[in-house]
């Protein structure tokens, strides 16, 4: 394993410490609960937004805490949902009179932790509501699973509910908006390489030099199929087609298009993929209104991409364009 790591058990804590040191004015770090929160949360006049998940998906979600996005994030260990109690403690700290919205990607462990935390918080009189995100189109037969997984589409939910909350929307309204975004967001990803969890020290699965995993999950879960490595244009075509056909997106739709790197793929390649996807959509009469190219929801050092489409309307265009101030900035 070649990583910047000390004792792997300290990986998450040391990453969060670095994040807090880099953002001393805006963030607060509570080590007992792996908790990163806005220094100025809770805001009395605003619904608080919380998201948690396993670690290893950075910048999701700890680096998306800030004005206009999350009020707090509570990550677990690498690829493991946080303990319910961490979530509960997080909710208590950012509890606002206007309520708390909990965003959760749809995985068994995460669902359970957040549902338990919601119950505990409600027992304390905190108005808390949970919203599940499940944008991944790659799990086709959900009868064998807990349903579709939440992946990079969660960014759009965070952004929209964060913007709405900042403008004073109440919990019902914020929940409605988040649900709507989730209902029009679709994602599919693919891996060129496996990822290596620090504590495991070796790749999570074996992927031969000439094979890729189509529809991979962000914890390295298998997706639709394993297939031969091909030219970018052929692989991207399959990703875009799967996403487009799922909602389905249709000619005349305005969309947000995100090309998300899974951690090991350089941004030059991401822009190449973006260009291919954009042109494919244009050929279908689908108009890209807003573009997102970079890393949003990663799988440690996995080389790969995911493509997300969100069908836009005027409300979403307005919310997506709202300002935000989070640790992920470049200058």
């Amino acid at each position, binding site marked *: 394993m070649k990583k910047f790591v000390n004792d792997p058990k300290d990986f998450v804590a040391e990453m969060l410490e670095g994040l807090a040191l880099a953002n001393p004015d805006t963030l607060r770090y509570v080590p007992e609960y792996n908790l990163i929160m806005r220094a100025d949360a809770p805001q009395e006049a605003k619904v608080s937004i919380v998201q948690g998940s396993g670690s290893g998906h950075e910048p999701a979600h700890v680096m998306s805490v800030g004005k206009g996005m999350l009020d707090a994030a509570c990550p677990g*260990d690498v690829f*493991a949902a946080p*303990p319910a*109690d961490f979530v509960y403690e997080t909710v208590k700290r950012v509890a606002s009179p206007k309520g708390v919205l909990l965003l959760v990607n749809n*995985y068994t*462990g995460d669902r359970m932790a957040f549902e*338990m935390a919601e119950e505990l918080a409600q027992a304390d009189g905190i108005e808390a509501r949970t919203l599940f995100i499940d944008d991944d189109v790659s799990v086709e037969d959900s009868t*064998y699973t*807990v349903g579709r997984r939440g992946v990079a589409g969660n960014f759009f939910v965070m952004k929209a509910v964060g913007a709405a909350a900042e403008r004073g929307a109440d919990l019902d309204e914020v929940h409605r908006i988040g649900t709507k975004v989730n209902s029009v967001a679709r994602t599919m990803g693919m891996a060129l390489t496996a990822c290596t969890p620090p504590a*495991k020290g070796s790749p999570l699965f074996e992927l031969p030099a000439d094979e890729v995993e189509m529809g991979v999950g962000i914890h390295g879960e298998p997706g639709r199929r394993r297939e031969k490595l091909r030219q970018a244009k052929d692989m991207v075509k399959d990703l875009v087609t799967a996403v487009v056909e799922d909602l389905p997106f249709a000619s005349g739709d305005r969309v947000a298009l995100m090309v998300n790197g899974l951690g090991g793929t350089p941004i030059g390649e991401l822009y190449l993929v973006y260009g291919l996807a954009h042109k494919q959509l244009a050929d279908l009469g689908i108009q890209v209104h807003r573009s997102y190219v970079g890393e949003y929801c990663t799988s440690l050092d996995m080389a790969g991409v995911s493509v997300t489409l969100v069908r836009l309307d005027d409300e979403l265009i307005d919310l997506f364009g709202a300002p935000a101030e989070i640790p992920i900035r470049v200058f």
Partner: protein
Amino acid sequence: MSSPSTQGSDLEFVVRTIARTAVDNEQQFGDLDAVAGDGDFGYSLARGFEIVLADWDTFDRATPSDFLKRVAMVISKRVGGTSGPLWGTAFLRAAAAVKDQPDWAALNGRDAVAMLRAAAEGIKARGRSDIGDKTLLDALIPMTDAVEQRLGEGGDGGAAEAADVARVAATSARAAADATTPMQAMRGRQSYTGERSIGSPDPGAVAVAVMAERIADTWDARD
């Protein structure tokens, strides 16, 4: 605190043995999870039950229910992933099942079955799962059925009968865990691998069996 020979002490013995088994088998349980899951099952369980053992003497023991609730709290607080909420819920529901029985000495076999049933129901509810999904329920429920049946057959209620019930639990849990091998996982991380989950036993079910066996093996040596 209850004396070594009370029923309450049997409950403490059972819980402590579960905890010790989790800690001692971290590696084995993790390896089982690595076959079709993500390899963290042993790590998660061990981290939680380690703290249960460390905090052992500090738990409120006013009633059996209070005691079980403390155990549940530690697990919920410190264990992440899927196992934290499931095992935490199991202990919390077991606590609720005996909340009307404040007397450690009065706990009996029927209470044991009630706690196991409540735990299984809690896991089902929390995990949206049921028997047949290839989870620890596939060991826990058959084991509870076997124990209930054995108790229905009657006995002298003495030490010999209790040891025999423990053995029945162990035998039935092991058989049930073995029977998960040909099943396809319908819940948890394993389920995304689809058919790749067939051919190995469910880690959670095996853990239940290993715990039950250790309880039976050490029943007569309990203090």
